[in-house]
């Protein structure tokens, strides 16, 4: 596999890591979380953020064990060609699958909120064409786009929160701490935790290209905390403005909050602006996932570059996005009932096993190098 050539700064890496989860966290996670943990959903967000921090630390540990090498490269180094074939195939499939799920989710959003008469396939194909164009430009193009567009989402969340503060009903958050145990909070945190776990792809598409590998963990923590804080704010604002029942019933509850913003006669119906900011961030997310997919595929097949896989993978992603689920209700059911253990295999189980193997080999080598060699040489002389 030839080297990508691109290099990204730690700030760009932090923005990219935030882009992996933040757009989904702000728009699609809150209804499910409020449904489980009601007014304490913000505590579920805190638990999920802690899980995200753990996974980003795992990704950083894997990348630190072999600087400049991706997760598949680490597998190849420790488990040889058979390991690379198995793990490479599994990850290529998983990344392609998640890519298709994200594409379907964002396409449905565009159709529901912005273009109700446009077929999903047209939106999905148009978005994929944009993603394809950027990814063929290399990791640096994606990183620049992330730094340009991603900060708009947390800033707009903050602005919307300030503008809707006149509708806040603090009583809807009461009681602030749970009275019936932490079970609902943990239930509400399960799905978001698996979404936060997606930051594991930093060890495939971000950390190996960092120009200062020492700042790996710091970038990861900044990205995850940015996502976590935004999610907590979105949950608190949604519950305070809409109430737990409405916040859990609506597919895109925060968009409803944005619709309610009304300052005098001149600032109304701002959801279009917010939706466009969010769409930009979602496109960057798609780009990172698509980049990870084709890069992993190329490493798995032992190609010199990922470019030959970009066009067929783009076609496959659009096809899969339409095939996997007939409608958004089926998609929601899949996320609620199957997604968490499926994602955990790729976000936690395989990376953890790889890290343990890498550490075991390192320790065995250290033990081997500290063996007394001089007496052996003397023995040989005799």
């Amino acid at each position: 596999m030839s080297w990508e050539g691109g290099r990204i700064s730690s700030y760009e890496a932090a923005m990219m890591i935030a882009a992996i989860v933040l757009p989904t966290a702000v728009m699609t996670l809150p209804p499910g979380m409020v449904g489980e943990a009601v007014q304490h959903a913000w505590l579920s967000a805190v638990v999920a953020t802690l899980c995200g921090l753990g996974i980003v630390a795992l990704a950083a540990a894997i990348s630190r064990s072999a600087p400049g090498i991706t997760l598949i490269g680490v597998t190849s180094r420790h488990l040889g060609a058979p390991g690379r074939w198995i793990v490479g195939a599994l990850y290529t499939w998983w990344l392609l699958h998640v890519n298709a799920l994200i594409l379907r989710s964002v396409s449905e959003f565009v159709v529901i909120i912005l273009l109700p008469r446009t077929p999903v396939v047209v939106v999905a194909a148009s978005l994929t064409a944009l993603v394809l164009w950027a990814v063929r430009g290399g990791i640096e193009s994606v990183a620049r786009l992330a730094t340009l567009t991603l900060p708009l989402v947390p800033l707009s969340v903050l602005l919307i929160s300030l503008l809707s503060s006149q509708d806040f009903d603090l009583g809807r958050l009461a009681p602030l701490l749970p009275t019936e145990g932490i079970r609902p909070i943990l239930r509400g945190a399960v799905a978001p935790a698996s979404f936060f776990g997606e930051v594991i792809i930093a060890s495939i598409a971000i950390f190996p290209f960092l120009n200062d590998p020492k700042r790996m963990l710091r970038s990861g923590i900044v990205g995850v905390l940015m996502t976590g804080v935004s999610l907590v704010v979105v949950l608190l604002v949604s519950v305070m403005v809409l109430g737990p029942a409405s916040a859990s019933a609506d597919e895109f509850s925060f968009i409803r909050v944005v619709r309610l913003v009304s300052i005098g006669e001149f600032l109304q119906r701002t959801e279009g602006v917010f939706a466009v900011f969010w769409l930009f961030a979602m496109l960057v997310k798609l780009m990172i996932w698509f980049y990870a997919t084709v890069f992993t595929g190329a490493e798995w097949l032992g190609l010199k570059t990922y470019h030959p896989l970009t066009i067929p993978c783009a076609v496959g992603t659009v096809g899969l996005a339409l095939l996997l689920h007939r409608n958004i209700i089926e998609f929601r059911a899949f996320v609620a009932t199957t997604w968490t253990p499926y994602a955990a295999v790729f976000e936690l189980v395989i990376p953890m096993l790889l890290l343990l193997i890498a550490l075991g080999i390192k320790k065995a080598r250290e033990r081997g190098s500290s063996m007394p060699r001089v007496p052996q040489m003397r023995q040989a002389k005799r």
Partner: protein
Amino acid sequence: MALLGFAALMGAFFYYEYARIRRYGGGQREQVAFSVVMLLALLFGSAMILGLPIPNPTDLIEAIFHPVAIKLVPPS
């Protein structure tokens, strides 16, 4: 009509990318990998357009992971 348009688009993509791989020094491995994956994408897309029954990977994933998910988070 849609199938013809899709096939023509894939043909144009193939011509452009194959020439590009050769121009930038891609080896036989890249050419074979590209051709095979492109053929799979063409077959998959054509089957989708024609509405042929394609096995849905979600069914397999649900069969494997749904029982685990039920144990992890029992339905309330």
